[in-house]
């Protein structure tokens, strides 16, 4: 019951954002907002594996780009509506996530992270050498100028990403408060103890890598239509991996709201910096913010708030 209330509130909030932005008659808001929402999905997806289970994934860009390139491949074959592409991109990246889980299930800690980094390199090499989707030249995707009902295409993309973001956050919140979430938390805290208590750690880890990968792929699926031209260098951009780790860390990794706060905060700052200074400064911002948080609030904003509340209740 409370899940549905949450979903309704989130949808109402989303509708407010969308119509509010429309009211301002500025398409740039949609361009910038799309990127922030895309990061919101990525951060939430990363957090399912990295935050809930404690497995740090450096390969976000691989899953994200796989979603995007699935769309490119399908577009070349026969164009399809974006929601369908999102579904297909999610399936492809989810399968790759499952495969990664199987291959790396014996690895823990830094070793797992290094393996995910390797995965990103492998996938990028494959895509760069796959001529059908443009190879290293990149691929042009011509998008229609308008969409029925919504109007301008960027508003449509924004709306699609908004819905996806709400779905991702909803899913993350549901996982967190279910037996699945408890199982994930037990893996994060002490995997051996979890196993001894009868938590099927292997199966849960595979579910986490699959879900996390699938949402990353979904976030990437509309990308070719957003940029119009996609090449491996932009699809596998370092920023995706860095941001999707930094955002949950800044917000707080143990709850669904952490990545949301982190993505909205960092994502917005980056978009503002892009227009006021330069997009080159974005990674620098992430670096500085991350160093600051590690020193002042290692458990993120949520951790800081929780510590405050606990200190107050103890007094």
């Amino acid at each position: 019951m409370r899940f549905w209330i949450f979903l309704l509130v989130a949808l109402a909030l989303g509708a407010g954002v969308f119509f509010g932005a429309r009211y301002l008659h500025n398409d740039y808001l949609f361009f910038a907002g799309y990127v922030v929402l895309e990061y919101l999905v990525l951060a939430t997806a990363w957090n399912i594996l990295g935050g809930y289970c404690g497995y740090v994934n450096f390969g976000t860009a691989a899953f994200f780009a796989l979603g995007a390139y699935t769309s490119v491949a399908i577009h070349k074959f026969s164009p399809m509506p974006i929601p369908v592409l999102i579904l297909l991109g999610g399936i492809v990246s989810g399968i790759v996530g499952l495969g990664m889980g199987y291959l790396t299930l014996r690895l823990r800690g830094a070793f797992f992270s290094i393996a995910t980094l390797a995965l990103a390199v492998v996938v990028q090499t494959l895509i760069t050498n796959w001529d059908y989707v443009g190879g290293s030249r990149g691929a042009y995707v011509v998008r229609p100028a308008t969409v029925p009902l919504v109007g301008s295409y960027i508003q449509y993309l924004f709306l699609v990403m908004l819905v996806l973001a709400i779905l991702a956050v909803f899913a993350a919140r549901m996982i967190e408060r279910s037996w699945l979430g408890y199982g994930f938390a037990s893996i994060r805290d002490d995997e051996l103890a979890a196993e001894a208590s009868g938590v099927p750690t292997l199966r849960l880890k595979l579910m986490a890598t699959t879900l996390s990968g699938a949402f990353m792929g979904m976030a990437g699926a509309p990308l070719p239509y957003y940029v119009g031209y996609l090449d491996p260098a932009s699809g596998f951009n370092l920023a995706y991996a860095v941001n999707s780790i930094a955002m949950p860390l800044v917000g707080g990794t143990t709850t669904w709201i952490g990545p949301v706060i982190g993505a909205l905060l960092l994502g917005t700052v980056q978009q503002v910096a892009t227009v006021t200074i330069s997009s080159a400064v974005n990674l620098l911002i992430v670096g500085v913010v991350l160093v600051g948080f590690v020193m002042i609030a290692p458990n993120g904003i949520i951790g800081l708030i929780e510590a405050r509340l606990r200190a107050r209740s103890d007094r």
Partner: protein
Amino acid sequence: MSGSSITVSGIHAAYGAVRALEDVSLEVKSGETVALLGTNGNGKSTLMKCIMGIVRPSAGSIFAEIDGRRHDLVGRSTEAIVDLGIALVPEGRRLFPKLTVEENLLLGAFRRIARAQIANNRAFCFEAFPQLAERRRQLAGSLSGGEQQMLALGRALMLAPRILLIDEPSVGLAPILVRRTIDKIQQLKEQYRLTVLMAEQNFTQAIRIADRGYVIVHGRIAFEGRSTEELNNNDLIRKFYLGL
């Protein structure tokens, strides 16, 4: 409803090239408390892990009888063994330090079979360990050593197990807390009619509640004491443990 027992026969286990267990046979009969005695590095924990399916023995067999039904444990997943009603209190307690006391208990009942009984079992746990009820919202990592051991026991009881394996309950506890923990184990055993296999270094404490025991040295059963007197009077034990 007949008994629950464990029969280990002739198992060998190794970590890579390092042999941990060699031809170990042991039996825990229904309703018994059996002590597995031995100092560090002799294979006590490995034996526990073999029974739980965490470490796979290279040879030998492990059977468990649960309420009169016989099950082969070798090759079964840990989850499946837990489902049978065998619970392990791991060495060093291994709680989930950043989760609350209550969440730790819930995780003890992760298996679907245990979830059905969760309210009852939690009530039993809080009855057996009133300190845990007071601290239910506290993080497990912030509990004292004695409380953590109680929580580890409570977490295992959330499964409503028939057989309880306890690996070194005395580790890192002050002498008075060791005494209390051992007493508690005895009390729980009687209350829930458990069959208990307890690995322990603290000979004098373990022997207080054990019906009989095995001494394990360098991965082999060096001595089987059919009663506490036999253990008390054994030369090996006098030499290794008591320094006589």
